[in-house]
């Protein structure tokens, strides 16, 4: 078990992080490149930047989400995200690991905060899952990953909590720690290939859905040629 633990927190961890970074960077690069290409091809290059920027910012901050619709879901989702983002990055024990791995550190969350944020993330993840199952419209449009992601995200939070706050025998501790690290690795690995890509792609959404209406010039002729419809009646 010890060697497995070492593998999970050593090579596998480094591999997952690299895949995550490269994968997410690739997605950003692809998006930026297609934005650039689409803008170049567009017949009308003017874009309402003010509107795009204000709409992008609205979505990155929670106010509009709560105010506009599904307020309860939004509050759950926002509180869930807060813990999700803060705990992994700012937990004292994690920062120590980062320091070992990459050589520098940053201030940690106070112990109490970390404790309550972990609990709130767990609670809100459960509430999100329940909400998704019982809300008729959400459950209808959900894919497998939409149910599984909150479950997967729960695992490191629960096991991490168990390891640091319960008195476990050393072997149980190692078991829970192994699950904790493996599930963390799994999350990093899967991020670029699933909907969690939204953590980096979301800021580009409004540019894309506005620019998408800027069509290239002279497509009529080209599409007709490709489809062998030149001169055909309407």
């Amino acid at each position, binding site marked *: 078990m010890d060697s497995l633990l070492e593998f999970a927190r050593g090579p596998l961890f480094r591999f997952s992080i690299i895949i995550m970074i490269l994968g997410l960077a690739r*997605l950003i690069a*692809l*998006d930026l490149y*297609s*934005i650039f*290409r*689409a803008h170049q*091809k*567009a*017949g*009308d*290059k*003017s874009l*309402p930047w003010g*509107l795009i920027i204000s*709409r992008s910012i609205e*979505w990155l901050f929670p106010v509009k*989400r709560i105010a*506009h*619709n*599904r307020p309860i*879901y939004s509050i759950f*989702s926002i509180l869930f995200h807060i813990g999700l983002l803060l705990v992994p990055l700012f937990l004292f024990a994690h920062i120590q690991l980062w320091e070992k791995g990459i050589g520098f550190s940053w201030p940690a969350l106070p112990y109490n905060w970390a404790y309550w944020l972990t609990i709130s993330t767990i609670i809100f993840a459960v509430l999100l899952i329940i909400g998704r199952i019982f*809300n*008729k*419209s*959400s459950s*209808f*449009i*959900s*894919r497998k990953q*939409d149910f599984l992601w909150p479950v997967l995200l729960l695992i490191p939070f629960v096991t991490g909590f168990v390891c640091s706050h319960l008195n476990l025998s050393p072997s149980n501790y190692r078991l829970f720690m192994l699950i904790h690290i493996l599930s963390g690795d799994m999350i990093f690995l899967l991020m670029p290939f699933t*909907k969690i*890509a*939204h953590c980096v*792609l*979301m800021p*580009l*959404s*409004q540019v*894309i*859905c506005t*620019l*998408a*209406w*800027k*069509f*290239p*010039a*002279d*497509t*009529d002729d*080209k*599409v*007709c040629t*490709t*489809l062998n419809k030149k001169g055909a*009646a*309407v």
Partner: protein
Amino acid sequence: MRTNPITPEERGKAFATQRKPEVLKKQNLDVRYHIEDFETNDRPGRFLEAFAAILKHSNYKMALDHFIRMSAKCGRCATTCQVYQATGDPKDIPCYRSELLLSVYRRHFTLGGMLKGRLLGSGYLTDEKIQEMAESFWNCTACRRCTLECPSGIDHALITHLGRYILSEIGIAPRALVVSTREQLEGATGNTSAIPVPALIDTLEFLEEDMLEEKNVEIKFPMDVENADYVFIPAVSDYLMEAETLMGIAAVFTATGDSWTTGTGYFDGINYGLFYSDRILERVVKKIDAETKRLKGKNVLIGECGHASRSAKYYLPTYCGGKDAFPVINIMEYTHKVWKEGKLKFDPNIVTEKVAYHDPCNIARQKWIIDQPRELLKAFCKNYVEMTPFGADNICCGGGGGTISIDEIRPYRTTIGGKLKADQIRRSGCNILIAPCANCKKQLRELVEDQKIDCEVMGLHDLIYKAIIFDDSLIVKKDVQPENIAEEK
């Protein structure tokens, strides 16, 4: 906004098909709108071919790639869509509708999807799926309201637009739209309402006489004047159905004295291309450009019509020269501008009814025209009420995206598409509903009729025509009209 879902009887009525069983069988496509006969062999294959051709020559790939990578499936769009709110049928959830096309894209045009599909031998596009798209994409009014509520920026109206474009390439498009477009682009009259030029001239002369009688002012519709500041292009159906709107517009120009003209070469702002085919969109826009060039006009002035305004404003630059294209303005922008400059006067005592304003999606969603008409209305209507939500967040009339022109789906439009709007109108208690758009006007009139709401629907310039006050110098002196004098004695 919430509404009560429709009852099963209403549902039956709304989805009742008017199409003959033998046609349905022959076309092998069970949808509510009429379609001209088309090739039914290997529809999936031809759909994919058309999809590929369109992707190759367009910018859609950017958006599709982004959408398939990040949809959060949060369900926010469900609470915004007026169609889903009315039907309560999960298949009308915008995210589900878009997924119909996105899944085809993922399966056939992305590496991962193709590999997975091959390995599992699954997911190949089928006739059933095409049928579902053909039905679903014409349930959506392409109002874009859901897009504003989607944190992932998924533009369901864009997907609807693209889906209909691809379908039209394999022959699946509402006959009503195709026939009108054919007349506009290839027919003898060159407009969607098939109005011959002599009839147009007759109509306008008749209106001029009417206006002289009513207002005692020589109000003209200048025809084929070269070098005018504004080349006027309304939705052509206005010449048949919205005389009052046109009279209001002519009255405004008479009051300001600015030069404007209607061209007899081309005078139709309607562009069904915006609803079902980028190729048509391009062809129609180019006709507007050509006519403006012929008349050596300076600006294109679109009448009271949302989709005509949007298609000209956003696609004239696209297809006809980018920054150098003719500037496009909507008539309400013009009227608002000249009113601000003090060139228009209104009688504040004429309109006493309760007036509300409906934002056409195509000019309000991107915050183009929202405040101007309201300021004008508030200037002379004593009793103006607002319907919420409004402006960029307005609720669609229920006839958007070209569905208004499909007469056979009227029951659908007035029981489902416009249900939320009907609730809103009822709540406002307005007697006059201003809808400055040819599509919205027709839909809202049918809506208030079918839903039995006591309210008159008209354009902004209809009211302006009633309230406008002309300068004394424009009033035709009574003494030149001998009969009048004789009567007075």
